[in-house]
């Protein structure tokens, strides 16, 4: 399987097999210093983005920090 399909913030996305989270963000032109990532309901800490591979059917959520009060 050369490509895998996943959902990114509710939208279908196709990426190359063995794409990691960091590569996914870069491919989607998402600024790495503005977001947190949840994959399959679990937060992926930033230091683990490059070692976490996307898998077929993954549901990935990208969001920024909210700081107001």
């Amino acid at each position, binding site marked *: 399987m050369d490509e895998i399909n996943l959902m990114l913030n509710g939208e279908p996305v196709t990426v190359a097999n063995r794409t990691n989270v960091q590569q996914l963000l870069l491919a989607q032109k998402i*600024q790495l*210093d*503005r977001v*947190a990532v*949840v994959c399959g*309901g*679990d*937060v*992926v*800490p*930033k*230091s*683990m983005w490059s070692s976490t591979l996307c898998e077929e059917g993954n549901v990935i*959520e990208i*969001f*920024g*920090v*909210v*700081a*107001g*009060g």
Partner: protein
Amino acid sequence: MALDDKDYVRYSRHIMLPEMGEQGQQRLSCASAAIIGLGGLGMLCAQYLAGAGIGSLLLIDGDKVESSNLPRQLLFDDKDIGHNKALVSQHKLQHRNPSCQVRGDDNYLGHDNAVNHLSQVDVVIDCSDNFMTRQLVNATCVALMRPNVVASVAHFSGQLLCIDLQKAPQAGCYHCLFPQSLKVSQGCDTQGVLGPMVGVMASMQTLLAMQILLQLDDVQQRRYDTLYRFNGLGLNQLSSRRKRDPQCAVCAPYVMEKIHG
């Protein structure tokens, strides 16, 4: 602190809750909390906790009331404009709830006063309005091993999490989720916010804080490792499991010490 007859009447709707009972109300009357920031979130948390019969509240905010606060910060009115939020809140809440010891500090939380303030309380409630203060509250609570209930809001987005490295070291801290290097774009002063949106987040934040103070750990085990994200337009909430960043510069030393003794 034993409850008297007036307390039984006043707190009867609490006491009839099986999860709370007389023991829970007594526990609350001996408990303490610090609220960082007396804006939209903090002024509501403070009212709920003082009204609920918490033993003592420490209110910390160097900010002054402005007219643009009044549509959502309902503890304040026109006469309060120009006065310090922590001190105005202290005065009003102490008057309404004489059994609660309310203290206000009209300085912002900083490196000079954070440890002293936050070491005095059972739970910290982060209602601040900026990312740097949130990082300071987190680092201080991690070092003190204090539970920290964090809520934030801007536009129609709200985030809520509870950090307690004693209860859930595997979930890490605020910095594991949102490292200090992160750039922040969502604040009320640039994106706007509606009062009820702040109220929803403050209410859930206070509910979490009360659960901690009442030690309702058998009821909701996941509160310490969950990030809640509330969307005020769709009225939906997403829950995600938080994970500790093994390379976190803030909590790694404390968590390793806890895990390995």
